[in-house]
């Protein structure tokens, strides 16, 4: 191979991958710019704090924001403790060879790969049709549907399940950053295992746990498929007042407004603005997670 040929090939081999890397950057910036420009004008205080009016062609999206907030709060309350405990078990208690630990790891991996819509089916089949209907039958038994129908509790629990692997992976990663010397020092001082976990491991990995929680919230706020038929409502004149109420949600609102509303073109402004709100929300969450993780990594180096 001549020198020039080598040089030309080298340039190609370098530029083509660089070009594709640039393509990704361009895509991200393009999508973001487009949505920001499209939604900026409609994004007012009244829009954020108002309710939909005139058949959702005017007004704000406060109920959807509130519903999303409620969804992620209930989801976190249910999912984060379970995820954290699982991560503690995997990294502190289980020996890597134990069958139980391997089963759990396998389950977490599988859970992470299950399509979001299948979680929705599970929520419908298990929470609503099995648990909910079971509760109705045993507690009320009046033929009315109380819990055996889509509501915010079942939607949140379904979402908690979906975000469980996110929490587990993040917390485990955080726990791994706690130096072994710290644990050993604690144990050498006579502390028990649980005391060590409580007083040494958890305080030292709290940032990571926070990261896990934030990432889960970001994921949960962005997913729509699992709540399509487990609790999200097209339009509600009032905010959900209890766990057995349905709710409006940002992502679902975008989907509905963009595909099912009677006059899709007339509400473009609202659609863009709602998308922008959801995008900003997930960004804010993701960035704080990235920032926390960055601080965590810095700690490992020093």
């Amino acid at each position: 191979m001549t020198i020039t040929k080598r040089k030309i090939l080298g340039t190609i081999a370098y530029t083509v991958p660089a070009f594709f890397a640039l393509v990704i950057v361009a895509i991200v910036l393009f999508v973001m710019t487009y949505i920001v420009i499209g939604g900026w004008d409609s994004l007012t205080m009244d829009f954020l704090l108002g309710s939909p009016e005139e058949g959702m062609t005017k007004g704000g999206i406060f109920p959807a924001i509130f519903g999303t907030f409620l969804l992620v709060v209930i989801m976190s309350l249910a999912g984060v403790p379970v995820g954290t405990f699982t991560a503690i078990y995997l990294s502190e208690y289980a020996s890597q060879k134990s069958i139980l630990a391997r089963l759990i790891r396998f389950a977490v991996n599988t859970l992470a790969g299950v399509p979001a819509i299948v979680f929705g089916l599970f929520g419908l089949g298990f929470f609503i049709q099995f648990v909910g209907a079971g509760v109705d039958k045993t507690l009320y038994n009046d033929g009315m549907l109380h819990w055996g129908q889509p509501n915010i509790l079942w939607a949140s629990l379904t979402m908690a399940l979906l975000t469980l692997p996110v929490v587990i992976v993040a917390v485990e990663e955080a726990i791994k950053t706690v130096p072994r010397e710290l644990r050993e020092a604690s144990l050498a001082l006579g502390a028990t295992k649980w005391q060590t976990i409580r007083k040494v491991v958890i305080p030292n990995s709290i940032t990571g746990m926070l990261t896990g929680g934030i990432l889960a919230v970001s994921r949960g706020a962005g997913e729509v498929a699992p709540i399509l038929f487990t609790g999200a409502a097209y339009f509600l004149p009032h905010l959900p007042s209890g766990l057995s109420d349905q709710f409006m949600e940002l992502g679902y609102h975008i989907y509905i407004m963009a595909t099912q509303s009677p006059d899709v073109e007339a509400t473009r402004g609202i659609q863009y603005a709602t998308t922008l709100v959801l995008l900003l929300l997930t960004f804010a969450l993701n960035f704080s997670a990235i920032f926390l993780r960055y601080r965590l990594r810095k700690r490992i180096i020093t």
Partner: protein
Amino acid sequence: MQPKKITNTMMKKRFRLSEFLAEKLITATAFMSFTFIVLIFIFVFRETLPIFSAPDEIAATEELGEQETYGNIVLTDAERAVEEKQNKSIAAEEGVTAKNLAGDRWQPISGKPKYGLLPLIIGSLKVSLIAVLLAAPIGILAALFTAAFAPKWAKEALKPMIEILAGFPSVVIGFFALVVLATFIQDFFGLEYRLNAFVGGVALSLAVIPIIFTISEDAISAVPKSLTEASLALGATKWQTALKVVLPAATPGIFASVILGVGRAFGETMIVLMATGNAALTSADPFEPVRTMSATIGAEMAEVVFGETHYNVLFLIGSILFLFTFTLNAIAEIFVRQRLMKKFSGN
């Protein structure tokens, strides 16, 4: 687990209730995540069972029109029991035969419902194929650039971009595809249908790129330094090393990333629901609308009567999706674990 050994060997363990409870509680909680997977299996498959218990030989009857009368009526227990029985008998009469499911028509809401899954499977495959064909080169080459060539500043600029892309909610990508991308592609190619498999595939590739990129990048970075250094020491240039040493060594990981990308594309719902037009056609033309399996569940589940055949068939579609992605994940896992181990352990 080093600490455990120290406590065990250096002092006698005294029974402490709090220790015991903490360990048992944490173990039990951890076990829950395993239980959930089992429950998902059970409860998604359980709802498909009525299909298989229906007798095969009886074809669809004309009585079906009456079936849709009970919708949102509040029922007493007795009535509900009757309804359930009716549903069961109707399901039996309908006889969702294997022939019906293998048909090429998806018309679940009609006098004689047709539950042919073929158009949906074709739809899912078509959209996923387009998405992965687009995302794989972009993701893999960008990963190669990041791991092998990029200066530090480029790396640090690119990674957050990928995280942002991965953080885009799928409904946002779907919205973008529906409003912007579809019009652009229609004008560019002069297409008849605004929403079609190609638009869905392009949009879906945005969701697949981060997966392929991240896992490929991991695989490429994991190639031992000794290999690259040996190659460079033998006089190979940086790009020769990258293409002929690093890339082949990272192949199993890259392959796994593509498989996982296929899994993601296959299971993704909101993007295809919003961007593919949702017409259950069986054609090979990428510019015609399609209806994918996941989009069918997403669009129809909210409107079906619980326990009806249509409902069960939707769960069957979900089970197929579940099994398919499960298999893909398992294959990817095996590839990453075993092949990489073998390759790098030196023998």
